[in-house]
């Protein structure tokens, strides 16, 4: 990797819609490591990932990470229906200043679909294209929100292999998921970090 990188999260609190959902989240993610975020629906995994990706401000705490090292992938794949698989990938590669999308196409078994418009892909194929986007960002820290949704067993294995290669290359991955991805990874259950419900003395804050 270009430089040693590490994501250090300390005492992070984040909110969704003005309501605190998680607080006191702390972990360290070093190069070559993967960390799986666990927790029931609605606990705040997506909110945590969005906060880490810089899409929303943290209520408290710090996220220490080298600039321009995170690649974020959300529930939505950010695909344009009328563009082909190649055009979609090429666009993101150019936005991230990278060249060459062939490896990404191969790794996610999309080579045969390269000329097809994204609107004609199945849900699983779209997801694979969304994940292939990670490979063309050239960024070392992957922040993924339920990446295996709508993937079949074979595609989950493809994804697992891609993550393993990424880790072997000195990358890191933070993945919110409910399933076993088939590679060694640390686990972080965010349930204990659930924010305490606020008392009535904070009632007025909702109107502030």
């Amino acid at each position, binding site marked *: 990797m270009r430089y040693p990188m590490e994501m250090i999260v300390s005492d992070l609190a984040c909110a969704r819609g003005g309501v605190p959902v998680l607080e006191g989240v702390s972990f360290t993610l070093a190069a070559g490591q993967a960390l799986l975020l666990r927790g029931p629906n609605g606990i705040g995994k997506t909110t945590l990932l969005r906060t880490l990706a810089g899409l929303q401000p943290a209520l408290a705490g710090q996220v220490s990470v080298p600039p321009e090292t995170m690649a974020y992938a959300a529930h939505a794949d950010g695909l344009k229906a009328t*563009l082909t698989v190649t055009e979609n990938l090429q666009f993101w590669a150019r936005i991230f200043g990278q060249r060459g999308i062939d490896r990404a196409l191969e790794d996610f078994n999309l080579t045969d679909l390269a000329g097809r418009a994204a609107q004609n892909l199945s849900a699983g194929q779209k997801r694979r294209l969304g994940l292939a986007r990670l490979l063309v960002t050239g960024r070392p820290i992957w922040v993924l929100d339920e990446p295996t949704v709508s993937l079949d067993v074979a595609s989950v294995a493809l994804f697992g292999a891609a993550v393993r290669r990424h880790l072997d290359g000195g990358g890191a991955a933070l993945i919110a998921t409910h399933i076993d991805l088939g590679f060694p990874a640390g686990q972080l259950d965010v349930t204990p970090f659930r924010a305490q419900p606020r008392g009535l003395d904070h009632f007025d804050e909702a109107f502030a």
Partner: protein
Amino acid sequence: MIALLLRDLNLAVRAGGGFGLGLAFFLIVTVLVPFGVGPEGAILSTIAPGILWVGALLACLLSLDRIFALDFEDGSLDLLATAPIPLEGVVAMKAAAHWFTTGLPLTLAAPVLGLLLNLDGAGYGWLVASLALGTPALSMIGTFGAALTVGLKRGGLLLSLLVLPLYVPTLIFGAETVKRGADGMATGTALMMLGAITLAASALLPFAAAAAIRINLR
């Protein structure tokens, strides 16, 4: 950033991209007005500058809500916000793409449609000049409005209400330029005001729009 501009232009001309939307609307307005007003050439040529500018402005308005809404819905906007290009650059490119697909075709089509409204011969050059100078401001202001309303479902109404008052100065000076040009009077002041609005909008609004998007993405 050029990649983003090219992608948006590419998307606009593909099926369902809405490239012809503004142009078709402009055509409809200018074709229908003579039917409504009547065939007297004198009346038509009096109202032509105003009608042409109002038509162009409304045609611009029509496609504004697509600027960010589509990217917001399919998740591209989140990904662009985490990409290495600054959000201000994204906004500027979006406004440029809107101008290329709306303002520029309107400017080029306006002289032909001016014929339908019996615009005075001296006015054609000023019509093209004022639209070329004024429509970038419409795109930029509209992009700012689209950024303000990006998270809202069906935010088109609010967007129109927000943007219309901001469009008024451009409309006044644009129509004034054409009117004065057609009457053979000096157009310098109105044209310069139009240019000033465009320059100020392109200098300031990308920052305001980017700030609005950051808040709306939370």
